[in-house]
């Protein structure tokens, strides 16, 4: 039997949701019939709107999909303006203030505290500069990710940007692929560093050469969610760039036809690849979904991949100043946990105009890049005050930190994430020294097993849990080690479970010190972990209280907002009307 969500999607889904959404917005929050809330909130996701968690009813998270993380000249200013004007809620965040933008691990933009009533105005503003929230969430083609400096990179073999752009144009708003069994995540990589992270996407295009021609090998069925992490699997297909869209259409058509619509937990294509195996995937694609002969795989470049490979080589996270292939430079700035205040965002837009071409790009490590800076502008740009907070030369603990949304807004979360990770990074920077040859050290914190912060591919993986301390329930984290991508990607080993959140910085400090004492000359952290079994590793992680103070130990999910004085669920002002005034709630 098709799931309930499938029934709602049968009634209304895809582009047509927009007119309903705009009409509800016109009439106000209370015009959504109470017995249709669940159905409409499920559908609104397709237009990039996700109803926030319990205690925050009537407020939405809004996601803007920026393909390949490319923010064209003129767009960032509008994003900053929209954040400043509309993304303010009933309470401030103590680290980030009252309005901010999140740069996400899939190169998108996320805003919070959006009111339904403001959506028509927001859509007008975004669309006036070519931005869109379409398909940013929901069961369809999601934002396409790729190498963030595609088209400008010295390491590039194929310009991946026109391919990503073509896929975006072909599949955004395309009714044939609007209602898939589940989300559909695609990555396009064109460089030999591997920074598209294809291995953890549903469909990956990876650079490969066949008979002297450059194109892409295809992998299918990667993903990290639940405790079911999978790497995308090689289906032995090569395509030239001009046929990339046809193969993508075939593959998403196959998913449309054969994906599981009865059980959403089993719907992602990774489970179909498990069931069929790569040979059958290829065969069905060939027989039923493309009308030309598929080529077998070409010679890939995976042995050159440096991105998140633990080797501390290559441009890796794109932070810092790097030369482009046209002689200009790109300047990658570190944004701690990917969150930037609206005023800072507007300032960044100005700097990008003044010193570069106005184009800014987002990375899959929640950072931003100012593009196209001529050499003669570099010194002046470097001395801008904004770069003190968003540095091109950050501490490894600052640049390596990624955190998901967590209990601040997310229904699935178990623990507080972003503010905690900010405090972790600052403490680690002041108290722990990595070996000098480790400029990069990745610590990813996800509030639950959905793994939006991609914890399984970090040096230190942190995942939300709970435990008891002196009998009282407290927020805790599972600790995993040694994950990463590269030629041979590897998911982290979970070695120490349910560590109270205030003992995690001490655990990382002890781990780093043990690593420094025991490593062989030049041994990387990842190799060090790979060479040891789980028990040995567990002994090297020694959780410990330190002078680090954690203000979020107290089950933040049970508050309406974790950072306010009166955080009791009953004190929530939500739901509110379009002016933010409390409405009587249903219960």
């Amino acid at each position, binding site marked *: 039997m098709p799931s309930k969500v499938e029934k709602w999607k049968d009634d209304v889904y895809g582009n047509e949701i927009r007119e309903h959404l705009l009409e509800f917005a016109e009439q106000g929050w209370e015009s959504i019939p109470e017995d249709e*809330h*669940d159905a409409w909130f499920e559908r609104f996701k397709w237009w990039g709107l996700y109803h926030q968690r319990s205690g925050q009813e009537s407020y939405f998270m809004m996601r803007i999909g920026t393909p390949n993380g490319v923010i064209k000249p003129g767009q960032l200013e509008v994003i900053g303006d929209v954040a400043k004007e509309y993304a303010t809620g009933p309470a401030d965040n103590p680290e980030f203030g009252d309005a901010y933008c999140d740069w996400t691990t899939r190169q998108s933009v996320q805003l919070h505290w959006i009111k339904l009533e403001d959506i028509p105005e927001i859509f007008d503003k975004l669309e006036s500069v070519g931005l869109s929230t379409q398909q940013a969430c929901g069961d369809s083609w999601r934002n396409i990710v790729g190498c963030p400096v595609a088209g400008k990179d010295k390491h590039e073999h194929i310009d991946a940007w026109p391919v990503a752009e073509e896929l975006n144009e072909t599949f955004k708003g395309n009714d044939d692929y609007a209602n898939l069994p589940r989300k559909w995540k695609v990555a396009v990589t064109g460089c030999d560093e591997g920074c598209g992270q294809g291995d953890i996407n549903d469909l990956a295009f990876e650079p490969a050469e066949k008979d002297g021609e450059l194109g892409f090998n295809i992998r299918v069925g990667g993903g990290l969610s639940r405790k079911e992490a999978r790497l995308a699997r090689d289906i032995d297909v090569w395509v030239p760039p001009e046929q990339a869209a046809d193969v993508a259409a075939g593959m998403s058509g196959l998913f449309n036809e054969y994906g599981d619509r009865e059980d959403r937990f089993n719907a992602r294509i990774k489970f179909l690849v498990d069931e069929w195996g790569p040979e059958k995937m290829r065969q069905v694609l060939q027989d039923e979904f493309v009308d030309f002969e598929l080529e077998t795989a070409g010679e890939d470049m995976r042995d050159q991949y440096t991105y998140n490979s633990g080797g501390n080589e290559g441009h890796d996270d794109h932070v810092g100043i790097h030369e482009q292939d046209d002689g200009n430079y790109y300047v990658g700035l570190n944004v701690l946990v990917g969150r930037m205040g609206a005023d800072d965002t507007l300032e960044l837009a100005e700097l990008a105009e003044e010193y570069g071409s106005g184009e800014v790009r987002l990375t899959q490590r929640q950072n931003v890049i100012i593009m196209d800076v001529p050499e003669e502008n570099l010194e002046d740009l470097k001395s801008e005050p904004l770069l003190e907070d968003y540095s091109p030369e950050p501490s490894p603990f600052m640049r390596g930190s990624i955190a998901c949304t967590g209990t601040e807004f997310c229904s699935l979360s*178990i623990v507080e994430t972003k503010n905690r990770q900010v405090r972790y990074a600052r403490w680690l920077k002041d108290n722990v020294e990595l070996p000098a040859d480790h400029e990069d050290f990745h610590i990813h914190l996800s509030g639950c097993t959905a793994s939006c912060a991609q914890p399984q591919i970090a040096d230190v993986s942190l995942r939300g849990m*709970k435990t*008891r301390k002196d009998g009282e329930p407290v927020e805790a984290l599972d600790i995993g080690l040694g994950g990463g991508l590269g030629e041979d990607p590897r998911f982290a080993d979970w070695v120490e479970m*349910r560590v109270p959140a205030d003992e995690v910085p001490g655990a990382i400090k002890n781990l780093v010190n043990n690593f420094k004492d025991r490593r062989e000359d030049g041994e990387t952290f990842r190799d060090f972990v790979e060479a040891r079994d789980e028990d040995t590793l567990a002994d090297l992680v020694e959780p410990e209280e330190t002078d680090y103070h954690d203000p979020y130990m107290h*089950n933040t999910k049970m508050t309406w907002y974790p950072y306010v004085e009166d955080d009791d669920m009953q004190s929530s002002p939500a739901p509110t009307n379009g002016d933010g005034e409390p409405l009587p709630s249903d219960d």
Partner: protein
Amino acid sequence: MTTDVHQLDDGAWISVNDSREVNVSDLWLLARSDFCDCETTDFLAEGFVKVGVDHPDIEARIAGQCIACGASGITDWLTVGRVVDPKSGDFYGVVHESVHFPEKRTRLARTAD
């Protein structure tokens, strides 16, 4: 009206008649369960896998783990609340911190998704 129950947002919460009623991330104490070897399982709810109605009970099978011993898996059916009067549809949640007894289903009830 019939009581309308489903899990949403990947099992993040249970909706009863279009109202969010039961959330993940709470701790439940489970007794006499074979979930793990602990005398009472100190169970962290991480996701609602199945929900159903066995009038007047609203029941769920929940994915999660015992935070005392670390065993993880899916519980048998647990009563998470009641809708006593289907006409009004009002939901009364159970107190999750008190002790609960998961049951293997012996009779058929209506499951939903």
